[in-house]
């Protein structure tokens, strides 16, 4: 009787010690593995001229068919009277939410957040086309790809360009450098510095989605270069 009690206590103690040691090492691993990224994009509306070079580059690089789009520049205006009229350009694309509603509702796990990059991705072969994600996305940026028949959207050109060490197509095609892409975990990155120092905002923050598409709002709905 005594023996088995001692044995049990010993065993339980060893197990607890082992578990806590495992937890501690796992936590330290999780907090800062060298390869971990948290990609984000910033759109400076004051610099954007609405030339649509980004939307065209996106369509070409990612082979997005006509009729659907991963990226759109929504133009509002004109504001003011001739000859001093202006327009406001707003980027509409996946916001790569930290707490993504599309991922939460996906019944098959086709929509997921890549833990290494923070990018919201779609596993085409897992997607059954139930449209839950399209209904759940508060930013209305998801669509069914007419060729693959799976849900599709911006992935920061993860497949087509990031994997080759290149910046997303929209960023490189922008003639006025209105788009800044980078890693929020890298304190030296341009996007980190801008988010820290500029008056940035994000769409529908109150929903608790924590989007990673930051915007510097146009001063007064006009283009200032």
């Amino acid at each position: 009787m005594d023996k088995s009690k001692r044995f049990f206590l010993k065993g339980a103690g060893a197990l607890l010690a082992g578990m806590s040691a495992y937890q501690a090492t796992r936590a330290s691993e999780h907090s800062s593995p060298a390869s971990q990224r948290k990609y984000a994009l910033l759109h400076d509306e004051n610099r954007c001229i609405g030339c649509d070079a980004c939307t065209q580059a996106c369509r070409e690089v990612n082979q997005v068919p006509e009729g659907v789009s991963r990226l759109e520049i929504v133009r509002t205006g004109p504001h003011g009277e001739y000859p001093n009229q202006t327009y406001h350009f707003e980027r509409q694309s996946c916001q790569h939410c930290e707490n993504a509603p599309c991922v939460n509702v996906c019944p098959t796990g086709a929509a997921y957040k890549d833990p290494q990059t923070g990018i919201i991705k779609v596993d085409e072969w897992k997607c059954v086309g139930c449209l839950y994600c399209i209904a759940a996305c508060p930013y209305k940026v998801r669509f069914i790809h007419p060729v693959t028949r799976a849900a599709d959207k911006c992935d920061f050109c993860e497949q087509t360009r990031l994997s080759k060490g290149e910046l997303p197509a929209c960023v490189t095609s922008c003639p006025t450098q209105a788009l800044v892409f980078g890693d929020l975990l890298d304190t030296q990155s341009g996007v980190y510095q801008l988010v820290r120092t500029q008056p940035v905002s994000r769409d529908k923050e109150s929903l608790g989605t924590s989007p990673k598409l930051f915007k510097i709002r146009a001063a007064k709905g006009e283009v200032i270069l």
Partner: protein
Amino acid sequence: MSRLPLLVALVSLLSWLPVQAKESSSAAMSEIHKSPCMKCHKRNGTMQGIHGNSDLTVSCVDCHGEKQGHPRKASDLVVFNAATPAETQVKPCIECHDPQALGTLEWTHNVHSNKVSCSQCHQLHPTEDPMVSVTQADRAAMCQQCHQSKQD
């Protein structure tokens, strides 16, 4: 036997083509080319564009201004090139073309208004204005011609 209608269509098409060519060359004979300006300015080329259509009764002076002392003495003739202020160049165009209507047709008209001259994009003298057949990619590239340099 069934090929006969096709042959007839082809022959009629071929006979129609030279007529079209003759018509475009007859643009050189439109009213605008009887203007006294053409006595000297033939070497600058003829007015082939839609503005040269006799039915529009547009004359050289309507856009370029009155001759005044030209060529020996001073004149206020408008030359549509980079040396002339944009506002001066836009003025004769908006006499006929309503800025609001232009803006509805193509939003970029509104933002450039009288700050960029129409002639920076449009050409009236050739048969077809290059802007008529511009593609989406050309369009974005044209924006970059000016806007890229401004950022550097």
